[in-house]
């Protein structure tokens, strides 16, 4: 069974079509990237998968179950998302403990204390962060909390929406390492949205390049090593990102 499957998916926003005829599969345990610039529709695809962008048509399924057009409780235990902005994805009035306990309370999972502590150590946060508020933590620490929250329900699939774009270079490296380690330890499937090709090179196996709502090319990330893309847009994106062989 594939982890994520999209067949001829169109997604609209406010009446306009922003994603057109998108088709791709992500195998279980694979790390797949959706690459594109702003306005390419890549984030919209993620949102549609979890029901945050309800105007879509076509076939979409996660772990064999068809997706619905709104957030789904059952899906929550199999698929979770990490958002881009560490400053916006945590409630400003909740401590880390409250943020991490919430998914457990919603689904009636016990042993909260132990699980929260284990989640903190899994993402490399010391115990002393447990009762801090978001404004008392740095961007990297907040993003770790966001990742821990996503992992509380032990999903198999993780959707990552530009998880390191808002972070400093050194912090980005730490978070990328964390994501890579977690995937290896838990056999997670990643679908990551980003505009940063080197990050794809580090973290992903395959990638799809999106332009103006359509997928123009699907390739293995090895293509980034030598720039072996077939679509002209992919080539241009590769060159603009500082791909080898381009003249700057």
């Amino acid at each position, binding site marked *: 069974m594939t982890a994520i499957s999209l067949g001829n998916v169109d997604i609209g926003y406010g009446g306009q079509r922003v994603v057109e005829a998108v088709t791709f599969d992500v195998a279980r345990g694979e790390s797949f990237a959706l690459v594109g*610039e*702003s306005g390419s529709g890549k984030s919209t695809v993620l949102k549609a998968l979890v029901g945050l962008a309800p105007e879509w048509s076509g076939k979409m399924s996660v772990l064999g179950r068809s997706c619905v057009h709104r957030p789904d409780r059952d899906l929550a235990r199999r698929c979770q998302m990490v958002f881009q902005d560490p400053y916006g994805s945590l409630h400003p009035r909740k401590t880390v403990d409250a943020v991490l306990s919430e998914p457990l309370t919603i689904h009636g999972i016990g042993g909260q204390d132990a699980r929260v502590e284990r989640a903190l150590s899994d993402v490399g946060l010391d115990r002393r962060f447990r009762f801090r508020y978001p404004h008392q933590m740095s*961007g990297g620490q907040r993003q770790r909390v966001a990742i821990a929250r996503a992992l509380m329900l032990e999903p198999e699939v993780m959707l990552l929406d530009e998880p390191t774009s808002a972070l*400093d*270079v*050194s*912090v*980005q*490296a*730490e978070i*990328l*390492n964390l994501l*890579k380690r977690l995937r290896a330890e838990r056999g997670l499937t990643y679908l990551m949205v980003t*505009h*940063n*090709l*080197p*990050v794809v*090179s*580090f973290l992903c196996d395959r990638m799809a390049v999106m332009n103006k709502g359509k997928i123009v090319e699907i390739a293995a990330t090895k293509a*980034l*090593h*030598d720039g072996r893309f077939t679509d002209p847009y992919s080539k*241009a*994106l590769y060159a*603009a*990102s*500082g*791909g*080898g062989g381009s003249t*700057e």
Partner: protein
Amino acid sequence: MALLSVEDLRVSFPSPQGRVNVVDGISFELGQERLGIVGESGSGKSMTGRALLRLIRPPGRVEGRMRFEGQDLAALSERHMRALRGARISMIMQDPRYSLNPVMTVGTQIAEALRVHEHLPRREVRARVRQMLDSVRITDPDRVAGLYAHELSGGMGQRVMIAMMLIPRPRLLIADEPTSALDVSVQADVLRLIDDLVRDRSTADGGMALILISHDLPLVARYCDRILVMNAGRIVESCAASDLHLASHPYTRGLLAAVPKMNETRAELPVMDRSAWAGT
């Protein structure tokens, strides 16, 4: 004599723990060249740029010496500083959505930037605006001059910003993360534009120097002659761009190593041990 000479510059702000130096005693000189200042958030690089333009208001405090074209910037009156800003030293900021006035057309804003410093008849102002929009490679300058800021794409907005800041022909251009808010494909265009404009302003017009502030080390290495690396308010490395790979300071080496590469094969990215240079 150097165009800009900075000595022991300190910028401090009050905090619950007492005054904190966000720029902690930096010194450098700038000639007719392109200088890149690189650092992460909190390194003090943006504050340095703002301090040079005397844009830091109380409770922030600026100390140290800054000499531009022989004049002591800290000693100038606010009126003289205003005459300097825009005319001799200009600054481009990160997001054109926030730095362009939303209720004025583009043409009006650029014209205003010109009128503040030069008194020209209206027709000449219009001609200069058109010429400037042309030089920033906007294809339909008359049409664009009538647009509002929200009608522009990111790249076009930044070009308009550049036009606005360069129309009074300053000697020094400070670009603070000019392309961070732009798409990758547009970034290269805008940077190349800035590069060309800086180079074109040859000695005939007095020449223009560039200070490029960014968090992106490889980008700065591509577009600058010299690089200063800042960390925690101090300059930890100063080298020619071509010698970046010979950088010696552990922070610089750490930054270079931590950036993922296009042909990445490492299983793990090296993470910086910040305590290594805590004493520097």
